[in-house]
């Protein structure tokens, strides 16, 4: 009788211990996931260039800031980058011509390292104004459509009107 009760008690303790350990393991993994979600850093390229097909034009002058970071001035042909952490962000654009301010919220996919925001597209309301950007893909596209090797550099992409001529926009 006593032995059976003891065995039952031991079994209960074992089950409870197992449950507590399982719960701790879940909490451990959840904290890891939370750290990835809240801590993952992304590079946002802020682009102010004309469309290759002429569907939109670069903005003459503007001030752009992401979240609470310091704002930067952009003129036609400019491209700069901002580092952000986490997924949800706000971009604030102040256009010099009409002194209007546009504020938009956007989400960066968790595993995307680099995104490009085309501010002229955003201002013109053309979707998608935010797209994933892969350096390797850009180089590949530039090599496929650009002038012979040796004359093309990745840096020159930004200086050539329309970027890599005839190159399709980077695929997501």
């Amino acid at each position, binding site marked *: 009788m006593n032995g059976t009760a003891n065995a039952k008690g031991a079994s209960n303790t074992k089950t409870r211990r197992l449950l507590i350990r399982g719960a701790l393991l879940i909490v*451990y993994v959840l*904290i*890891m996931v939370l*750290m*990835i979600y*809240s*801590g*993952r*850093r*992304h590079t946002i390229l802020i682009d102010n260039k004309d469309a290759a097909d002429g569907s939109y034009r670069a903005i003459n002058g503007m001030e752009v800031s992401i979240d609470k970071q310091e704002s930067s001035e952009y003129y036609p042909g400019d491209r700069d980058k901002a*580092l952000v*952490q986490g997924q949800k962000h706000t971009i604030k654009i102040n256009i010099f011509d009409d002194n209007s301010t546009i504020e938009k919220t956007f989400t960066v996919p968790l*595993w995307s*390292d680099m995104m490009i925001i085309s501010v002229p597209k955003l201002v013109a309301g053309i979707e998608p104004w935010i797209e994933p950007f892969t350096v390797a893909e850009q180089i590949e596209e530039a090599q496929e459509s650009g002038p012979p090797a040796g004359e093309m550099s990745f840096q020159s992409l930004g200086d050539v009107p329309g970027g890599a001529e005839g190159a399709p926009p980077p695929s997501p």
Partner: protein
Amino acid sequence: MSARKKLSTLFSRYAVVIIFVIITLAAIPPSGLSVKYILQEIITRLGRNSFLVLALLLPIYAGMGLNFGMTLGAMAGQIGLIFAVNYGIANWQGLVFALLVGLPISVFLGWICGLVMNRAKGREMVTGYILAFFINGIYQFFVMYMLGSVIPMGNKAIVLSRGYGIRNTLNLESVRQSLDNIVMLRVGGFSIPLVTFVVIALLCVFVVWFKRTKLGQDMRAVGQDMAVAEAAGIPVEKTRIVAIIISTVLACAGQIIFLQNMGNLATYNAHDQTGFFAVAAILVGGASVTHASIANVFVGVMLLHAMFVVSPLAGQKLFGSAMIGEYFRQFIGYGVIALSLVLYAWRTRKAAADARLGLRGSQASPAKRSGETAVGNGGQA
């Protein structure tokens, strides 16, 4: 006890500290550094190193000597940081992530270290030192080959151009000083990384609390005499393993704190000197192989690093070469460890001789029986 004998005992007990204070003070004028600069450097280095040095306390309480095996924890912390950089996790979240990755690895390595040390009782220090070399080989294999080939690494910037293995130096820009900069106090022209010091203070509170727990008391009992502790029903081997596991885990966290302050990671050799400098620091602070306290940690870090700050410039001024100061730094580190071990062995022998003498004296005249028979659990080497 005569005044002369008291002075001799005091000197032998604090010989390392006294010698170090004298050398450091003597090196300050030729270095030409301002006191303010030296103090700021000491504050920075206190935040950077104290956690690592505190990791040495528990094994000393458990009678396992200076845990050179803490290097294992440092390697686990580095693996955690490599993954944090690979996944692009920045700021303090990156540090927490690195800790969460490093934690199970350090527990496992600490457990292995504890098992090995239980088979090498009385020779824990040299065993830990050699074990660190052995695990270093596995670490090199893991980082140089496994990462990028077996374990995919998404961040190509940290992978060697051949496609696998991690680059020699890793830029920890994403987590650089992220703990220090959460709250950086500016007091009287000094920058004090408040959160780092809070973390260190919490560890000190943990150590004080832990010493009062049943496990902490068991550790001290094991440290004093394993046979007596065993007879009293304390699971000696298990207690020793727990001490080493806790030390390894703390070393993992300590290495992460150290590296976030430095801002870059020498992938293949950042951990090499971790144990060596931590051990040197605690010994400089007045600890011995069998006795250490929290105060020893802070005194040691301050003194050792004050020396590290002034010695290259003192070497430059006195000998015309900063390298002399660098060699001096190495020489001091190894010299302190050697001196402490020699003094420890000498004190142990002296205590045993005194005890024998006391016993003979008491046999000759029972009235002379004294209580001077304190002998530690000698044999540590």
